[in-house]
């Protein structure tokens, strides 16, 4: 009876794992096949990989897109980490009634659907003359209430005695932050960095609106425009999807523990 129950549990989990992993296998196999084979459901490796790859580079500005996505994700993540940790630290360490009220107000922005603010943002950025610039992609999410909240939560467990000790050593308030807080909080920065990187790397709706010249596109925009063409070439698309997915997959396997910690961090 007990054995039977365990077999059912394993069967269920194997099925769930199979369904979870299947699309990964599908994209890896797909990038070696022709589009018509993919649409017909061929599930074995073919010999089209190099043709698909060269077609992808010939028909799209994939190199530029990779560079754009990378610049946006790295610059955006660094800026977001600096600004959000400054605020999270400030709100928690220098608590006051006024700051608590401001924090509460900022939290409301988490409830604002992006679709509700995208039109004014679009008009704002075209007014600034920042259409088709990578800065325009980064700026609207350069600080988020969620990230400030994340740093504030994690600062609650930061040992305050370290700050007192630093003050005795004659450090200025700002160097307390850069010399004591930042090094001590490295795990928090790593976790926050991973989730922020992911959201910049995968962002779609806002870049779709604000980036309209071909050489300024990001990887998700390339994948989407290839797939929505009248006669999509799935072999080429699969290569683009693998190139888009690989970096986040590598980050995940290198930093698996931090990755999960980052997702859980918000509800500690």
């Amino acid at each position, binding site marked *: 009876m007990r054995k039977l129950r365990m077999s059912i*549990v*394993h069967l269920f989990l194997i099925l769930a794992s199979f369904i979870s992993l299947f*699309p*990964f296998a599908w994209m890896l196999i797909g990038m070696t096949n022709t589009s018509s084979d993919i*649409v017909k459901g061929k599930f074995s490796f073919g010999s089209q990989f190099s043709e698909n790859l060269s077609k992808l580079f010939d028909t799209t500005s994939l190199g530029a897109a990779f560079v754009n996505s990378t610049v946006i994700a790295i610059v955006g993540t660094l800026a977001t980490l600096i600004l*959000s940790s400054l605020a999270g630290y400030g709100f928690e360490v*220098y608590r006051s009634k006024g700051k608590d009220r401001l924090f509460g107000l900022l939290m409301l922005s988490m*409830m604002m659907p992006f679709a509700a603010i995208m039109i004014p943002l679009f008009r704002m950025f075209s007014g600034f003359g920042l259409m088709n610039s990578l800065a325009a992609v980064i700026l609207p999410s350069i600080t988020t209430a969620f990230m400030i909240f994340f740093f504030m939560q994690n600062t609650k467990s930061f040992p305050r005695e370290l700050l007192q000790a630093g003050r005795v050593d004659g450090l200025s308030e700002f160097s307390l932050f850069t010399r004591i807080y930042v090094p001590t909080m490295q795990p928090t920065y790593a976790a926050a960095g991973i989730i922020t990187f992911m959201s910049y790397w995968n962002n779609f709706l806002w870049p779709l609106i604000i980036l309209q010249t071909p050489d300024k596109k990001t990887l998700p925009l390339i994948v989407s425009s290839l797939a929505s063409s009248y006669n999509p070439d799935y072999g080429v698309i699969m290569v683009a999807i693998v190139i888009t997915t690989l970096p986040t997959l590598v980050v995940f396997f290198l930093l698996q523990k931090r990755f999960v910690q980052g997702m859980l961090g918000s509800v500690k």
Partner: protein
Amino acid sequence: MGGKWNKSSLIGWQFVALPSALILLFSFYPMIQSFILSFQSGKGSVYSYVGIDNYIRLFSDPMFKQAVLNTLLYLIIQVPIMLFLGLIIAHLLNMPNLRFKGFYRTAIFLPCVTSLVSYAVLFKSIFSLDGIANQMLTSLHIINEPIAWLMDPIWARVVIIAAITWRWTGYNMIFYLSAMQNIDPSIYEAASIDGASKIRQFFTITIPMLKPILLFTAIISTNGTLQLFDEVVNITNGGPGNSTMTISQYIYNLSFQYTPNFGYAATVSYAIVIIVAVLALLQLKVGGEKR
């Protein structure tokens, strides 16, 4: 003492000022602009006040009704299925003597690392008419003939719901698993001694202990589903015949696909704001009451 406190508070403001100003500029200011815009109509840079005309138009707009209906349909069907699946899987993975735990957990979590656009396009290719999904299902005799998944209004919705569930079940599972690991095992031991079955323990111990985290995941999933855009655009582009279109996609189409009408699009966007606010309050009330 008071002077010192003020000085320290002042330093604190220096830390929070710039980040807060950026959020006010890029979230709150557009939110107000959007509200003003929702009472205007026009093209290009010429806008005129039309009072509540846009809001009246909402109620006689069949596309808007369809988009709201679709979005709520995804919400009502997809979110409960996903949260329940995540809960079951977390419960199974939390069994103390389960083998290959690490493999299962990683495999089921892995969909979370894909970009929304990429997995949406993958699902589109998997569910093509002669595609792999139809082949597998026919060879297993689950269906007799291929289903035209993306050409049929009902099946297209099923594919979208399946896709979102694939992407996010592992994400929710991780939250539950971590909360379950914080439950004191002696509670279960005591219940076993009292003769409570495993299934009974799941409903009388596990679920009540997880209430705060269940509420948290319900709120973020609701928020996410109400803003659904990437998947629908890339799997069906709203078709066939607008049957899968969401509110976010309708706003996008009104602003950037059809003849631009920013004023009316802003009005539609305030509909989501209201739905998000109402549902969040409702969930907090329901979640808070049963404690």
